[in-house]
C-alpha cells in the first residue's frame, strides 16, 4: 500500500496542536467559512455525495441521516455529538479531542449550519477528563474569536456548543440512550421509530453524530466529496446493500502487539497489515490466535482470517457483526479463548442497561456459565446453551430495543463456533482459571 498522508491525525503531535492560533495557522476554520457561504442543503448534499458512513459503529450514512430531518421545521433542532466512546479497545475519538479539538468544533459548526441547528451538545464520557478540559478551553477560545455564539464569521449564523459529561455507562453511546441520559433520565434506549431525526432530544428533531464522523465533515467541505470517495473501497458488486467504504479511518490497535496505537489509513486495510505494518507485530515473537476487528461486540477473526479487509463489508464476510469502531484487539496464541470470552461477557453483563429482559438476563447467564467453566465445573452441553442464549437476544432475533445485545451475543457466537475445540478441551481436561483478582471483584458486587 502506498504511503497514506494522514488527514484527521495530521496535526497530532504538533506543538500546541490544541490552540486556535495553531489550528488557524494550518488553515483551520476555512471550511466553516466556505460552508457558511453555501446553502445548508448544499452542505448536506456534499456530505451525502461523499457517502461518509458513521464512524461510531453502525456505519449509517451521515448525509442520509441528515436528510431525515423534517423540512422547514420551525426549530429548535439539536445536534448531539456522541463522545461517549466506550467500546472496549476504542480510543480514536479521545485522541481527536485531546489533540485537535478545533477540528471537531469546526465539524460541529458545519454540521449545525447544514441541519439548521443552533445548539449542539457534546455528550462526553466522564472518564475523558483531559478531553473535557481541552474542549472546554477550545470552546472558550471560539466564543472569544467569534467562531461560536452570535453571528459567526459575520454570516448571521448562531451556534452554542455545550459540554455534557456522562457518568460511566456504556449504553450512553447508543444514540437514544444518549438522548435519555442528556435529558437527565436513566439511559434506557428508546423504541424506534420515531427516530431522533423526527423526535429526539427534548422531543425535537435531533441528529446524533460520532466525533470522528464530524471531523471527516470538515475535510469533505474543504476538499470535496470526490476527494473523499477517492480513498477507500468501492461498493462490493456481490453485495447490493453495500454502499462502499470511503474515506480515511482511524484504526486502534491494542492487546498483544509490540506497538499499540492509533493509525489513520484508507478504509480497507487488512487486519494482518495493521498488526504487522502498524502494530509492530504480535508481541514476544508469538502468533495471533484471535483478533477483535472493531471492538469486542463485533466478535473475533481467527488466525486464518487475518487477510480480511477492515472496511464496512469485510468483517461481515468473516462472520463478524461488522466493522464496529475499527478497534483491533490482538490475542496471542498463549491466551485462553475461554478467558477472553469471559472478559467480553463480563463487560456486557456489567453494561447491559437492564431494560430488556433477554439482554439483562442473557448477559448475566452467559457470564455465569463461563464462570462455571472457568471454575472447572463446565459441561460440554454448556457450549450449546451459550449459543442458544446468544441466539435469542438482540435486534437480529427481534427481542431487544437496542443493539447492545447483538454485540453481547456476537463474541459468544464467534468464539464457540470458531474455537469450539479449545472450549471442549478446556472443559474435558478440567482446567481452571479463576484468578485472585477476579475473586476480589466478584466479592465486590
Amino acid at each position, binding site marked *: 500500500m502506498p504511503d497514506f498522508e494522514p488527514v484527521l491525525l495530521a496535526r497530532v503531535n504538533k506543538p500546541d496542536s490544541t490552540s486556535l492560533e495553531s489550528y488557524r495557522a494550518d488553515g483551520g476554520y476555512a471550511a466553516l467559512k466556505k460552508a457558511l457561504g453555501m446553502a445548508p442543503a448544499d452542505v448536506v448534499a456534499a456530505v451525502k455525495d461523499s457517502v461518509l458512513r458513521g464512524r461510531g459503529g453502525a456505519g449509517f450514512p451521515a448525509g442520509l441521516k441528515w436528510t431525515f430531518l423534517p423540512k422547514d421545521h420551525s426549530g429548535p433542532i439539536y445536534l448531539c455529538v456522541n463522545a461517549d466512546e466506550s467500546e*472496549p479497545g476504542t480510543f480514536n475519538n*479521545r485522541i481527536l479531542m485531546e489533540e485537535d479539538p478545533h477540528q471537531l468544533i469546526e465539524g460541529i459548526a458545519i454540521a449545525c449550519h447544514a441541519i439548521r441547528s443552533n445548539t449542539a451538545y457534546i455528550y462526553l464520557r466522564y*472518564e475523558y477528563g483531559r478531553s473535557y478540559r481541552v474542549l472546554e478551553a477550545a470552546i472558550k477560545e471560539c466564543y472569544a474569536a467569534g467562531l461560536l455564539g452570535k453571528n459567526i464569521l459575520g454570516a448571521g449564523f448562531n451556534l452554542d456548543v455545550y459540554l455534557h459529561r456522562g*457518568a460511566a*455507562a456504556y449504553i450512553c453511546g447508543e444514540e437514544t440512550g444518549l438522548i435519555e441520559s442528556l435529558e*437527565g*433520565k436513566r439511559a434506557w434506549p428508546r423504541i424506534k421509530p420515531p427516530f431522533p431525526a423526527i423526535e429526539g432530544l427534548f422531543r425535537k428533531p435531533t441528529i446524533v453524530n460520532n466525533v470522528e464522523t464530524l471531523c471527516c465533515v470538515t475535510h469533505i467541505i474543504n476538499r470535496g466529496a470526490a476527494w473523499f470517495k477517492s480513498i477507500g473501497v468501492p461498493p462490493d458488486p456481490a453485495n447490493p446493500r453495500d454502499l462502499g467504504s470511503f474515506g480515511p479511518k482511524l484504526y486502534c490497535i491494542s492487546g498483544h502487539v509490540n506497538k499499540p496505537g492509533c493509525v489513520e489509513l484508507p478504509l480497507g486495510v487488512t487486519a494482518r497489515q495493521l498488526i504487522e505494518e502498524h502494530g509492530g507485530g504480535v508481541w514476544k515473537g508469538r502468533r495471533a490466535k484471535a483478533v477483535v476487528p472493531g471492538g469486542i461486540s463485533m466478535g473475533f477473526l481467527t488466525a486464518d482470517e487475518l487477510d480480511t479487509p477492515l472496511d464496512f463489508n469485510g468483517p461481515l464476510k468473516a462472520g463478524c457483526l461488522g466493522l464496529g469502531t475499527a478497534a483491533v484487539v490482538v490475542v496471542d496464541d498463549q491466551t485462553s479463548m475461554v478467558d477472553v470470552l469471559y*472478559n467480553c461477557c463480563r*463487560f456486557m453483563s456489567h453494561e447491559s442497561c437492564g431494560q430488556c429482559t433477554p439482554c439483562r438476563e442473557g448477559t448475566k447467564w452467559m457470564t455465569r456459565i463461563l464462570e462455571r467453566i472457568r471454575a472447572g465445573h463446565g459441561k460440554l452441553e454448556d457450549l450449546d446453551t451459550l449459543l442458544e442464549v446468544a441466539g435469542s437476544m438482540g435486534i437480529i432475533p427481534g427481542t431487544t430495543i437496542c443493539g447492545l445485545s447483538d454485540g453481547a451475543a456476537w463474541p459468544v457466537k464467534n468464539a464457540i463456533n470458531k474455537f469450539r475445540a479449545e472450549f471442549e478441551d478446556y472443559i474435558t481436561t478440567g482446567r481452571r482459571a479463576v484468578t485472585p*483478582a477476579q475473586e476480589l471483584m466478584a466479592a465486590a458486587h
Partner: protein
Amino acid sequence: MILTEQIRERIRAEFPKYPDKRAVVLPALHIVHDELRSVPHAAIEEIAGLLEIHPAEIHDTMSFYQFFREEDRPLGKRRVWVCRSLSCALRGGEELLESLSHKWRVAPGGTTDDGRVSLEYAECLGACEGAPCVLVNDECHMNVSAEDVEQIVGE
C-alpha cells in the same frame, strides 16, 4: 441545608444551557458528588427543589449509573479506577488491581481506613494503547505499575 450557596450557584449556572431543568440532573450530581464525596439523600431533595422535579426522579437517574456514592459509602480523597476490560486484561490490568488491593488493604469498591483513596475496577477507560491504565479521579495514566499508581496517588 446541605448544599452551600456556592454549590447552588454552580447548579443554577447550568440552567441556561438546556430548555428543560431536568437535563441538569447529571451536571448537578457531578457538582455535589465532587464536593461532598457522596450524594446524601438530603442533597437529592435539595437538588430536586432547585430543578423543580421529584426527588425520586433524581434518585432513579442517580442509581442507574452506579457512579455516584450514597452517603453510607462516601469516596475517599482520591478515586482510583483500574481498567479490567479486554485490552488491559491482556496486559496485566487485573493483576494491577489485585496488587493495589493488597497494598492498600482494601477490596475493590472500598476506601482505605485513612480515607486517602477509594479503589474501583473500571470497564474500558479508552486508553487501550497504554494498557494497563488507571484513572485517578478523572485523569488517565497509562502503562502503569502498582508502584507508579502509588506514587501518583501519593503526590
